[in-house]
């Protein structure tokens, strides 16, 4: 038996992954345990969980890998400070002590955090190599092109190459400071959202605006080539030397100052979001075309933070550049932990790889599961009233009935998802046919901006009847955006502007139809999704509608819930109507101490 632990840590989204003889046994992000969103610390709890899942201790580990190369990154930092001196002096004095104390001594730090029981050498792969490995090795492809796009690793901000059998080979890359991820983050900051977590909001805001500033971006900010490579005019940005993403020149160019967080979102910022989204999609498409031409491959694997831009992914698919694409569900830095572990197993230890019809990511359901006893302990301790529904079919029917009644149901069952998306194990579910559901969940349950869209979980076999999907196409990880089928759309009132467009029902399933008729689809199948498939199937049987609203089980600013305790607390502190903890079901009206009391 060979046990390999992959670690990503010390920047953001730290995570741990355990492989046993090449199989992904466990994977989890530290934030789910520590309850600190995007936790950058060493993933001690995630490591503990991974080892406990396999019944191992750190002394049993054969290899431990870290997802990037600290010395190369340090070199980039120093070169950046030299190139921008003296402007970067504040940033220098903020960053260097942490590097000297901790980040340059990762073997020591990690050995200490692992309790000193691991005595072998640590393996360090390059950041984009880790992303590339996480994109190709779990994919269902024998061979494929690989494209990685993110903020920055060591020097690389994007890379591409080829994966064949059990090897990957990256051949080309773009270098810092020219970065699609950082360009998107700069606009995220300009629009008043937090860098590294607000990018989804910017993507969700984009359809409300018009890409009026796209030409301005091409003209002043980037020199984009036909092959998707580009350079940025760094006088508009401040991230190389300062503590901000954008400079005053950037704000002057767009004619308005950066939006203050939580202030009203004007049309200007919607147009800005639409513009940078259009530019991002154009770059992604050009990169994909170039990768296709250069590698000659007809399938593509994607990873890196930018690969979470599911609108861009959907565009690549629709353009027909590749016959098929596979996107790593944990495309953020958490996925680097998986990448380094798989790189060690396949590339360095030379173990073969046999891709099947379905990818080897196991539905990305790789986190902890809490059994009946754990859930029972929670509800008993809290004095909650519950019903025990042992039969899966009965439980699925119960959930479907509640959704059909217009109730909002929190579902915590099975193994927790690895990656930023809730895929039916830690999800909040609702009726997609309801016109008020989006506003209700956003404002009364998740306490977040009203404009943010929700995704549909649709039975795989029915996806092409409701969305512009090829009948063979699947999207089990909610990483592709497509349009609601035209026959399901309703004539919309085009006079509405800005957030008023939310008031218009645009299709038969308004709760999951964004203002531009798009939807971020998750296809659900019995092989990957088990009980969750039964829930959606039960809803279909009851209503004829084979999809439900699926959003992550958390409130704004908090990580997705992990344990029954957290699920119960979230249930009681919001206006959620019902909660399912494995085989226990709870109704809000039966409880004491909720918001109503």
């Amino acid at each position, binding site marked *: 038996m060979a046990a390999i632990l992959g670690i990503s840590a010390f920047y953001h989204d730290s995570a741990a992954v355990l492989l046993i003889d090449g199989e992904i046994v466990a994977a989890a992000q530290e934030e789910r345990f520590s309850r600190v969103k995007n936790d950058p610390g060493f993933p001690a709890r995630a490591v503990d969980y991974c080892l406990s899942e396999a019944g191992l201790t750190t002394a049993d580990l*054969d*290899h431990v890998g870290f997802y990037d*190369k*600290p*010395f*190369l990154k340090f*070199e980039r930092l*120093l*070169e*950046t400070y*030299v*190139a*921008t001196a003296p402007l970067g002096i504040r940033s220098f004095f903020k960053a*260097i002590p942490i590097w*000297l104390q901790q980040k*340059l*001594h*990762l*073997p020591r730090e990690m*050995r200490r955090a692992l309790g000193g029981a691991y*005595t*072998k*050498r*640590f*393996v*360090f*792969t*390059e950041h984009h*190599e880790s992303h590339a490995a996480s994109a190709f090795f779990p994919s269902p492809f024998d061979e494929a092109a690989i494209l990685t796009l993110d903020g920055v690793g060591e020097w690389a901000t994007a890379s591409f*190459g080829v994966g064949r059998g059990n*090897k990957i*080979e*990256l*051949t*080309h*890359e*773009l*270098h*810092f*400071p*020219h970065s699609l991820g950082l360009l998107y983050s700069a606009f995220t900051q300009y629009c008043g959202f937090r860098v590294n977590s607000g990018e989804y909001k910017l993507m969700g805001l984009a359809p409300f605006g018009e890409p009026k500033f796209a030409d301005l971006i091409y*003209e*002043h*900010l980037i*020199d984009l*080539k036909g*092959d998707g*490579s580009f*350079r*940025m*005019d*760094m006088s508009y940005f401040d991230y*190389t030397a300062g503590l901000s993403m954008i400079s005053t020149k950037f704000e002057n160019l767009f004619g308005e100052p950066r939006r203050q967080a939580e202030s009203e979102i004007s049309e200007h910022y919607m147009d800005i979001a639409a513009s940078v989204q259009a530019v991002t999609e154009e770059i992604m498409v050009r990169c994909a075309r*170039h990768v296709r031409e250069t590698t000659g491959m007809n399938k593509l694997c994607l990873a890196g933070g930018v690969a979470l831009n599911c609108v861009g992914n959907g565009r690549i698919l629709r353009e027909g550049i590749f016959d098929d694409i596979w996107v790593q569900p944990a495309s953020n830095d958490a996925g680097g932990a998986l990448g380094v572990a798989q*790189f*060690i197993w396949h*590339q*360095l*230890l*030379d173990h073969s790889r046999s891709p099947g019809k379905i990818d080897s990511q196991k539905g990305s359901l790789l986190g902890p599961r809490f059994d009946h006893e754990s859930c029972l302990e929670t509800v008993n301790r809290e004095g909650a009233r519950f019903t025990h529904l042992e039969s899966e079919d009965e439980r699925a029917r119960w959930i479907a009935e509640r959704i059909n009644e217009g109730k909002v149901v929190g579902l915590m069952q099975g193994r927790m998802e690895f990656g930023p998306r809730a895929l039916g194990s830690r999800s909040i579910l609702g009726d997609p046919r309801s016109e008020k559901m989006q506003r209700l969940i956003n404002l009364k349950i998740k306490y977040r901006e009203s404009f943010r869209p929700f995704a549909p979980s649709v039975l795989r076999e029915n996806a092409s009847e409701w969305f512009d999907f090829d009948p063979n196409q699947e999207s089990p990880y909610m990483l592709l955006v497509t349009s609601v089928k035209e026959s399901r759309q309703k004539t919309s009132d085009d006079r509405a502007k800005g957030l008023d467009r939310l008031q218009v029902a645009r299709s038969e399933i308004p709760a999951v139809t964004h203002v531009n008729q798009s939807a971020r689809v998750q296809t659900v199948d019995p092989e990957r999704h088990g009980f969750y498939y039964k829930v959606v199937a039960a809803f279909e049987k009851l209503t004829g509608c084979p999809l439900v609203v699926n959003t992550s089980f958390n409130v704004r600013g908090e990580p997705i819930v992990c344990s029954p305790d957290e699920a119960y607390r979230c249930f009681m502190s919001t206006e959620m109507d019902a909660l399912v903890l494995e085989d226990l079901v709870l109704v809000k009206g039966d409880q004491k101490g909720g918001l109503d009391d």
Partner: protein
Amino acid sequence: MSTQTDSENIFDLFSNGAVSKRSGSSSFYQTRRLAMPFARPSIAVMDDESPRRTDSLQKPPSDSSAEAFSKMAEDRQPGFLSEFWGFLVQNKKWWLTPILVILFLLIVLVIISQTPLAPFVYPFF
């Protein structure tokens, strides 16, 4: 496809005129450098491959290189200074040396100033 070489200097990379000059190059992609699996790329199995070479990445490792990797992974972790020295040598980043020496001296100074030896530091200024 044309690719840029490693010859561009760091000041070009941070030039503020990237757009106003509008590069005549048809591509900004760079050929990838060789990656090494440990923090310091001084592994016997890969010694013959410089990280600065500009052709494509390493060939798939043979059985023997997988064995060599396993063997090297059993070794003790090299010390920090040894690793960093290997990094400088491998990447020929000699110009970083004075910066690192100054940083190192500053750290030593800070450490000494917090010990009973602090009064003896003043004569250096």
